[in-house]
């Protein structure tokens, strides 16, 4: 908008005074010449903003809104909401708290997007196009005209990475990071249920054990920048003051950055399709048994259920970690996921209402009472014959699914479903048991069931053929129930057969036969050529 004001308008107003006396005319000409000299300089950003406006209308308007207020037609299905460019509170900056971002900061967001939110990167726009659209975005707020942002001077990473992590735990306490992020950084701090952004929308304290979803990228340097500059518009504070007041030293802050970086993996977990269930002499006990530790862990991403109404566009649970083990008679699966609330919890009631108001605008009934956390593990009723399986969202009437349903207060039952929201409890007598533990923002549930079942109607697990498996999770404190929750695609559980020595026989035979044939061929060749 500012872009349009700057363009042709001033010229015409200058031409008018020339009607009067010759002196006025000369002054007019003088101003016109001056303006003409200034024009290329003034016009450069204006042109950018004009072509940027077209790009904005094509690619950004639907989320960020016609006037840039973050209220486009798609906005109300997102949390966090798209940025309000008029309010101009930016999160990913290298500048001090309360300041505007630099052009480089904005270009970074355009390149990488904001992971963990709906804001994508824009590889389809060239550098000039990115600059143009940013010029337009900046023109939407009066602040960019007035201020020139400056990069906040930070000390350089002294290195020493993981060694510093231990010492960093201290600053995590001094600076009260746990108040929002929780003891282990899983976003379950005591203030977490009360957090909201500057527009009053509920905002989650980031889960520091899932750094691949950090808005500003992972790694100690990015983290250091975030907690020194703060994330304006959100409760995430700047700690520059604490540094300047001597509450913490530069050293402490780098220790802290490495500590936080060590709370999660160094890169995003890779997706494997099969949970490899190893065979052991003895099954581990409860969820925290150390016997789980050396078993391989498999990550499966979950997303909001947006296939059938009512939908959940911004769910709490974004993935599960699965471990499996069997002893030839029984199968144990441990499913672990992060959820900052142990629901139902009246302490999160206000949060539940705020999420419902911000996100559930589809008119479907919104439960007002505190809800439990739930987990569903889905299998076909029988091992699939050929490719066909039940529909991945709880099957359908022709092909139902077999479920393990876990409830945060009532434990686990077996169930059956013929579509989303149709689960019914069936006690097949297969002997499913579960033990669960919620600790500092993380659920761990161990399911145990005998492998085989004499009853023909119930799925038997056998070694060899992988069996389809899918996961569903509901966070009660975010009002998730029924079809509103997180879902996964079909994956597999595969029970490893016992490794017998037989597997070494075939390779040995192959080695000996090939070697023998080789020797024989060489002998023959030597004989015939010498002879």
């Amino acid at each position: 908008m500012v872009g349009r004001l700057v363009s042709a308008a001033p010229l015409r107003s200058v031409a008018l005074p020339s009607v009067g006396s010759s002196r006025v005319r000369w002054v007019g000409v003088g101003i016109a010449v001056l303006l003409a000299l200034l024009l290329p300089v003034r016009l450069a950003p204006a042109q950018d903003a004009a072509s940027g406006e077209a790009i904005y209308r094509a690619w950004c308007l639907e989320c960020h809104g016609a006037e840039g207020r973050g209220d486009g037609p798609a906005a109300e299905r997102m949390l966090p909401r798209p940025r309000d460019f008029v309010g101009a509170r930016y999160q990913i900056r290298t500048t001090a708290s309360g300041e505007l971002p630099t052009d480089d900061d904005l270009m970074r967001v355009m390149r990488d997007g904001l992971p963990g939110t709906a804001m994508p990167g824009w590889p389809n726009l060239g550098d000039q196009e990115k600059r143009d659209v940013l010029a337009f975005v900046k023109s939407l707020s009066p602040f960019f005209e007035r201020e020139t942002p400056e990069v906040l001077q930070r000390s350089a990473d002294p290195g020493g990475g993981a060694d510093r992590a231990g010492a960093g735990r201290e600053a995590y306490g001094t600076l009260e990071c746990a108040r929002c992020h929780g003891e282990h950084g899983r976003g379950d701090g005591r203030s977490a249920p009360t957090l909201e952004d500057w527009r009053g929308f509920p905002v989650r304290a980031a889960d520091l054990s899932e750094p691949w979803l950090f808005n500003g990228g992972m790694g100690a340097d990015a983290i250091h920048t975030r907690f020194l500059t703060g994330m304006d518009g959100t409760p995430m504070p700047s700690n520059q003051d604490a540094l300047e007041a001597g509450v913490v030293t530069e050293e402490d802050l780098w220790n802290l950055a490495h500590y936080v970086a060590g709370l999660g993996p160094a890169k995003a977990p890779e997706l494997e399709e099969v949970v490899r269930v190893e065979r052991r002499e003895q099954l581990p006990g409860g969820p925290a048994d150390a016997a789980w530790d050396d078993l391989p862990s498999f990550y499966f991403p979950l997303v909001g259920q947006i296939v059938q109404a009512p939908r959940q566009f911004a769910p709490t649970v974004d993935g599960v970690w699965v471990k499996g083990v069997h002893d030839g008679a029984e199968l144990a699966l441990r499913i672990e996921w992060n959820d900052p609330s142990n629901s139902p919890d009246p302490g999160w009631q206000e949060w539940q209402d705020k999420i419902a108001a911000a996100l559930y605008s589809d008119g479907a009934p919104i439960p007002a009472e505190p809800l439990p956390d739930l987990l569903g593990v889905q299998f076909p009723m029988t091992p699939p014959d050929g490719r066909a399986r039940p529909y991945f969202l709880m099957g359908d009437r022709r092909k139902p699914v077999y479920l393990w349903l876990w409830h945060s207060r009532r434990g686990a039952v077996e169930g059956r479903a013929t579509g989303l929201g149709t689960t019914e409890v069936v006690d097949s007598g297969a002997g499913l048991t579960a033990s669960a533990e919620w600790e500092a923002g993380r659920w761990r549930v161990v399911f145990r069931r005998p492998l085989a079942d004499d009853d023909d109607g119930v799925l038997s697990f056998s070694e060899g053929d992988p069996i389809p498996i899918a996961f569903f999770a509901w966070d009660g404190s975010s009002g998730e129930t029924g079809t509103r929750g997180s879902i996964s695609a079909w994956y597999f559980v595969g029970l490893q057969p016992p490794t017998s020595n037989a597997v070494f026989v075939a390779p040995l035979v192959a080695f000996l036969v090939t070697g023998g044939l080789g020797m024989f061929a060489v002998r023959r060749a030597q004989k015939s050529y010498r002879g």
Partner: protein
Amino acid sequence: MSRAGSYLRHPFWQALGVLVGSYLLFKFGIGYVLPAIGVHSAPVPSSVLLQYMLTVVVALLLYVSTNEGRWSKFKEPLRQVMVDSDKRALRVVLLVALPLLVGFLTYGRVRADVGAPASLRSIHPAPPNQITFRGETISLTGLENPLREHGSFEEHLAVGATVYVQNCMPCHGDRLDGEGPAAHALNPVPANFTDNGTISQLTESYVFWRIATGGRGLPVEGAPWNSAMPAWEDLLTVDEIWAVTLFIYERSGSTPRTWEESSEGEGH
């Protein structure tokens, strides 16, 4: 030059070159290079690769053995390795290394491991002749997008854009490249409309069918049980579906296949 040239003209090294070249072509050329230059294709499964390579070996043996001179020249390097006394060290190394390699490959095959079964699906199965849309029968044969004939194109496009960002964006992405924020957790992944292997191969009636009935409307060869594509007849009106169809073609810069083109054969 002469040394390299003599290698190039030698039937043994020629055969080896062809063997390695065709392996690289099958392994990487078909699956990765072709898509990179915009030709639709997929990696060759390992069982098929083995078949291709066997065919190449047989063809090469036939070629070198048809001419007596070429055959003895071909055997020459083999003979040297097996007989010559100055090649003794190489001979020993090969006699140990080759059987080891074979043993190792065999181990890889027999080792107990549970892999995911291949999930094959037909991406564009034949559409039905007619569908029921919320109980109403719509014939697909010869069906055109009515919005291209009636009303304001710009207005339809604006409706389509809103329907798209509110409903399709989380999966198919703002850039229409199938990389929306929910896409990483779905299998099969949402269609990439900017790829010339998707909607530009289809008539608008086919796209209407896919949007209206979603994953559950697919026939068995389309693996309907895996598709997260919603059945939009539950949530959108007929006009909204036509508007979003218009939008995905317009925004991705592709054009629908016409009925004339599709009756010329090929099918979907």
